């Protein structure tokens, strides 16, 4: 009896070892990734073994962001549609923590064929590939025909979207990253509250400060999820204060650009905004708690927060104040009569230089702009920069995407890529993280500006052309 028992227990132990081998699940706590992350787990469809020779199979790694959460299976549907149109099979890896899932294999030299992962994320995987010049040139994709249709890819993408530093990082006219899922970023607020109190949405910063002084106790003007969300805010601010000329020079760290009156105005605005920010914001501005900061707007404890259109889906289940209605406005104008600006957030799809099936990968990228793919993406709320799509939007999304029709300028592009230098931080560390310090008083505006200038000089010296 005793022997039988010990044999049973031993075999149970061995079996539990095998069970661990079988699961490919993604464990982890609430590690949502701002800015395009959701709050729950996305299923991890780890790619299986490659198909036997004869058919080409490409591996596509896509980030499971808020759009995938709003419409689970979105990416799988697109891949299936691609296989139906071209016969090329697709192994899809779709995960919320994509960098952790594909990173180790890539460090060993095995690259997926197509990666959909934007710049501006904390782990900076795409930026690292840009710095290492490890991305395939896809300028020729623009003149390819979209699989299943007769139009060329270049004709299907809205003008200007392949002309920015987001897609052409080396300023040489060649496109390396394909623009995906554009969404205007702006200040989100509770439109219901504004109606109730009879407030008008400020169109200039002076009106903004006037509104802040009127607020009741317990309500602050501003909050932000994490400092990472300030990138869109800063771009739009620079664009609206200084116009496209100043904006483009600032993105390339021109000498003395941070001493100009426009730059000083930007810094002053952010400093003043920090003083009107809900003081508990920095305490919750981390990966665990950033949704609590977003909750402040839902609870009328803060009026505005910088965010993107995914916020509606991300906070869909959260409790909110009575009469809550999502509203979005562009950043106010610098002075009355001017235009506000809204940063156009673009995600990117790209092909690593070490991709095993380059041609098939380019076909996949071309397919992402087909009507079929655009329709599937739209179900999850992800809008491709293809003309005519915004006409079919409904509800909140329609309001968000009409922001440019209401007089706001569109800002696009990002800080120029620079060679990694020991001791020099990332753009986020230099420009954005100190905002936490501005709010809780541990960093002064002058310190911040001095650090920005010093880092900017180094970045300019190492800019990648």
């Amino acid at each position, binding site marked *: 009896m005793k022997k039988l028992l010990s044999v049973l227990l031993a075999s149970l132990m061995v079996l539990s070892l095998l069970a661990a081998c079988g699961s490919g699940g993604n464990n982890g*706590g609430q590690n949502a990734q701002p800015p395009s992350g959701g709050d729950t787990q996305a299923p991890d469809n780890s790619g299986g073994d490659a198909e036997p020779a004869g058919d080409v199979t490409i591996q596509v790694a896509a980030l499971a962001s808020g759009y995938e959460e709003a419409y689970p299976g979105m990416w799988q549907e697109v891949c299936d549609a691609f296989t139906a149109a071209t016969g090329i099979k697709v192994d899809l890896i779709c995960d919320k923590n994509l960098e952790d899932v594909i990173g180790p294999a890539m460090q060993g030299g095995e690259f997926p064929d197509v990666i959909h992962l934007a710049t501006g994320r904390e782990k900076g995987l795409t930026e690292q590939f840009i710095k290492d010049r490890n991305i395939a040139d896809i300028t020729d994709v623009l003149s390819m025909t979209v699989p299943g249709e007769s139009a060329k890819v270049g004709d299907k993408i809205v003008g200007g979207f392949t002309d920015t530093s987001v897609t052409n990082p080396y300023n040489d006219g060649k496109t390396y990253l394909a623009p995906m899922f554009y969404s205007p970023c702006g200040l989100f607020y509770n439109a219901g509250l504004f109606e109730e109190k009879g407030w008008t949405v400020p169109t200039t910063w002076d009106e903004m400060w006037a509104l802040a002084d009127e607020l009741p106790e317990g309500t602050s003007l501003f909050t932000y999820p994490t400092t990472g969300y300030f990138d869109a805010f800063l771009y739009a601010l620079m664009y609206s204060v200084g116009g496209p000329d100043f904006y483009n020079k600032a993105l390339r760290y021109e000498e003395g650009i941070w001493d100009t009156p426009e730059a000083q105005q930007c810094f002053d605005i952010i400093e003043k905004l920090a003083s009107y920010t809900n003081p508990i914001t*920095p*305490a919750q501005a981390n990966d665990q708690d950033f949704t609590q900061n977003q909750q402040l707007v839902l609870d009328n404890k803060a009026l505005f927060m910088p965010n993107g259109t995914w916020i509606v889906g991300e906070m869909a289940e959260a409790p909110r104040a009575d009469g809550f209605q999502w509203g979005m406005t562009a950043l106010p104008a610098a002075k009355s009569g001017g235009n506000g600006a809204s940063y156009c957030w673009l995600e990117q799809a790209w092909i690593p230089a070490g991709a095993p099936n380059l041609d098939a990968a380019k076909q996949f990228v071309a397919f992402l702009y087909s009507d079929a793919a655009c329709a599937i993406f739209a179900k999850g709320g992800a809008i491709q920069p293809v003309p005519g799509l915004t006409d079919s939007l409904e509800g909140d999304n329609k309001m968000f995407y009409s922001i440019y029709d209401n007089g706001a300028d569109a800002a696009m592009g990002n800080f120029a890529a620079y060679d*990694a230098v*020991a001791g020099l931080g990332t753009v986020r560390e230099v420009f954005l993280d100190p905002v936490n310090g501005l709010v*809780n008083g541990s960093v002064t505006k002058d310190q911040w500006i001095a650090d920005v200038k010093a880092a900017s000089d180094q970045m300019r010296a190492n800019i990648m052309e």
Partner: protein
Amino acid sequence: MRRSKERSRFIALCVAPAAILFFIFMVLPTVNVFRMSFFERGAYSPTETFVGLSNFKVLFQDAKFISAMQNTVLLIVTVTLVTFFFAIVFAAILTREKIRGQNFFRVIFYIPNILSVVVIAGIFSAIYKPENGMLNSILSAISGRDIMILWKDQQMVIISIIIAMVWQAIGYYMVMYMASMSAVPMDLYESASLDGAGRLAQFFQITLPLIWTNIRTTLTFFIISTINMAFLFVKAMVAKGMADVGLSFMYNQKDAGLYGYAMAAGVVIFLFSFLLSALVNKVTQRDVLEM
């Protein structure tokens, strides 16, 4: 002669798998860390350029690294002292006094040790929440006014991390000390109390010296594990840049695409922990007391 040769071959075979795995997964990567610190490369690119000692030169002037190491030292000192104090005291109480439910307490204290750091971060998120979090609610209820301490903001963040780390580590060491304390024979205590020694004197003169070797070994382990756990806690609980420790600095350099620089930081941290443990080992050396 033959017998011992066979025996040593058998022993070598038994030890071989563990030794080989240890070599491949522990020794080789450590050597690689040292090697990579003299080069510079991106995380995903295969080419590397030799830079010699320049990584180290920049490292020692990097203000972020200096402040990260200061945080590390602060955490090591405070967490070690607080954990060991409470672990030894609780172990002494649970062993000496005949408290009912002794095993129950052992289990309760040990549970935090088996929780994953992400789970602990989630628990403390709820505890440290500024509005309606557990700590602030209790403090408000006790003091009568509305207390809103920002536990995870710049001023309090180190204390918050210390509390979480101590909470996680106490159980493990308490259980270990309980085991070694129960090996101390009771008649020593009896004869001591006959001679007029009180509880406190018994603790310092009998218990502590007899478990001293145990304390020494666990101290070395704990210092090294704190360096690692501090990184995990800071990564899971705290906003980026607010309270970086040595290893999170190293991790951030990977995100910036500077693998060689990150490895240089790794080398410095490795040597630091090595020297610190050796130092602590030397300082706490005493004659071994046999019972």
